[in-house]
């Protein structure tokens, strides 16, 4: 039961806009155990040159999650989520996300392949503000263990 190759190149329309709040950024920074003040103290962030508290570098994965979750949940994709582990992740940033940004994430399935007994799928998630400013692109490779067996 492999990942359905017909999904290669498919782009999923962005979901509803995601508004980045200070509370969410502080919660995420707490969850990763990072006490950096620029993630939770507006005056520290402003002093460092940012318009408001910024997001930790891995936070864009959360913004993309709602959109990618819809893609992964498509029954036609045939992905067994309990067998999925994260293979690779990369972010290319135009600027840090900050509180007050209202963004959308457009997910494209950019690669599907079999590697030995496993299947891999790479998504490219383009995160932009609702005003059309591109902020970050995330590249995620998921591995379905035993997916090609």
């Amino acid at each position, binding site marked *: 039961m492999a990942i359905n190759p017909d999904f290669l190149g498919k782009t999923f329309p962005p979901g509803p806009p995601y508004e980045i709040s200070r509370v969410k950024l502080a919660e*995420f920074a*707490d969850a990763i*155990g990072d*006490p*950096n003040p620029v993630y939770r103290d507006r005056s520290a962030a402003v002093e460092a040159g940012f318009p408001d508290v910024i997001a930790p570098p*891995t936070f864009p994965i959360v913004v993309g999650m709602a959109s990618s979750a819809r893609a992964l949940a498509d029954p036609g994709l045939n992905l067994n989520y309990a067998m999925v582990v994260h293979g690779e992740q990369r972010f290319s*940033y135009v*600027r840090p996300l900050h509180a007050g940004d209202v963004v959308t994430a457009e997910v494209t399935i950019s690669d599907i392949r079999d590697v030995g007994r496993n299947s891999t799928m790479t998504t490219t998630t383009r995160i932009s503000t609702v005003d059309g400013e591109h902020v970050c692109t995330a590249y995620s490779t998921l591995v379905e263990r035993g997916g090609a067996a």
Partner: protein
Amino acid sequence: MYRVLNAGGAGRRRVSDQVSYDDVEVGTELAAVSYPATRLSLVKYCGASGDFNVIHWNERIAKAVGLPDVIAHGMLTMAQAGRFVTDWAGLKATVVDFGVRFSSPVVVPDDDVGASITVSGQVEEKLDGQRVALALTARSADTKVLTRARAVVRLP
């Protein structure tokens, strides 16, 4: 618990404590820092990230699908590497590119200690536009958990 979470390096917590591009030398080693990951960390990360994959909190299912135990989210491990980078780079730095390969899972036992993720790095390259590339490694239980890990930061 807060003390445990902050067992690693103090980092640059003040704007005045800032590394500048001109002061950076290629080949400089960044001292290793260890970060803990307990079952509580995973539960908190599930909640904050929205990634509730059962392999991160349910030992029964994790073992049933062939894993040694509950494993940490790859993104939680990557976040520790990100913290290592930003603590070194200082508050005024911005990360412009950050990529990793998850080479082995971080196995998190059901005890009060959990796993430890040790991150180290080296200044790999100085690039144009005030940018510096760092090569990173991360280990847990003597196994490399991140490979091909690289971050590019823009420094003042």
